[in-house]
């Protein structure tokens, strides 16, 4: 057996893992080869040195951290080891996560909503959603005179008449814009003016004189049968 083969087996020889004939042959070689025996002694000495190294004590800080870790992990395990517990823990964690997410947003969001409501309430009056009262007096610069009710008009010709309405809503004069002015028409117009009702024109809310253009048209009904 060569020295090289023996040296490759020395580690196992040292650990008593060589058995049978191989162990005997290595032992025989060691008995007669001083170099290999010295090599074995060195390996044995080094192993003894390694085994003699004092075990490094675990620092107290690490021991404490491990105890804390064990406690935390035990609590975690106990909170998820059954399905209902796991579900409960999961829901708590989800709620906590949402809370933690919302907390930084809560104040800005609340401030934003309040600000929006405040600004909206300030802008609402300008939108003009108020109901229009029937008898309200218009306060615009000028409103024209309007017809409320016109009395029946007998004349059969098409006639356009401009009526002059005073501040009490009564027609005081007229001017025929289209049509032939005849004595019958004059009588009809006088009767119509007397019986019709008008709303006077206004100037800054105050009744004033105005004009109304009234058109009379002939309507013909053809009845068959």
């Amino acid at each position, binding site marked *: 057996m060569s020295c090289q083969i023996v040296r490759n087996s020395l580690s196992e020889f040292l650990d008593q893992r060589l058995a049978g004939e191989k162990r005997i042959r290595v032992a025989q070689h060691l008995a007669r080869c001083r170099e290999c025996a010295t090599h074995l002694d060195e390996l044995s000495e*080094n192993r003894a040195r390694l085994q003699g190294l004092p075990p490094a004590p675990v620092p107290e800080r690490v021991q404490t*951290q491990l105890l804390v870790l064990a406690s935390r992990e*035990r609590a975690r395990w106990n909170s998820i080891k059954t399905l209902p517990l796991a579900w409960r823990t999961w829901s708590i964690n989800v709620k906590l996560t949402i809370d933690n997410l919302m907390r930084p947003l809560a104040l800005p969001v609340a401030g934003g909503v309040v600000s929006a409501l405040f600004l909206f309430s300030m802008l609402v009056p300008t939108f003009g959603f108020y109901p229009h009262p029937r008898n309200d007096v218009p306060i615009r610069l000028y409103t024209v005179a309007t017809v409320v009710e016109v009395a029946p008009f007998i004349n059969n010709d098409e006639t356009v008449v401009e009526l002059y309405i005073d501040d009490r809503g009564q027609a005081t004069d007229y001017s025929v814009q289209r049509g032939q002015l005849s004595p019958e028409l004059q009588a009809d117009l006088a009767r119509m003016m007397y019986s019709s009702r008008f709303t006077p024109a206004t100037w800054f809310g105050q009744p004033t004189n105005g004009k109304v253009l009234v058109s009379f048209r002939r309507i013909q009904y053809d009845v068959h049968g």
Partner: protein
Amino acid sequence: MATLILDLNSQRTADAVAETDDVALVRALREGSEQAYETLLLRFQQPVYNLALRLLNDSSDAADVVQEVFLKVFRNVGHFRNQSSLKTWIFRIAINEAHNQRRWFFRHRHREVGMEDEREDARSRADLLADTGQSPFDYVLDQEQQTLIEEAVARINPTFRAAVVLRDITDLSYEEIAEILQISLGTVKSRILRGREALRQELENRLQSQPALSLVPKTAE
């Protein structure tokens, strides 16, 4: 021969007891027993720390590794199937974590410069008490030898170092080492052989390059 048989039987009995203990401990851990968690720490925190320290040669890295190991153990104990012993399983996690830590160190930490003064040899209150043990001379010699060995171990290839540490310091069998490192028995033998050889050469070089410690007694000035 009779003694050998007796020894084997007692070894088997011890293994069986350990296995029963492991099963009971794992069951108690799964039930969330507080005592089981403490027992696990008491049984394994020292060997795991020692293993990590020997593999990494840095106490703060070893502390980090120990915490990571136990975190994984606590988190994954539900998946432990008793196919290996609890010790083997934990040591396998420790080896992997130490490997990860070493890889991380080479990527990041070797560029860092510590600001704090955390000396390994800082004296504690216990050091100030009267020591009835060995003499200062013996103490210094032992310290020097210990430092020499630790440095030599730290210098050998990490692959072989793990095998040597598991065999000679943690005192595990070849089969257990094969299971922890997840390699064949032949590879274990090879790594132990090459690791021991590398350690022998490393120590030889160091002893040759460094003069032996010689202390000359002097009176105090």
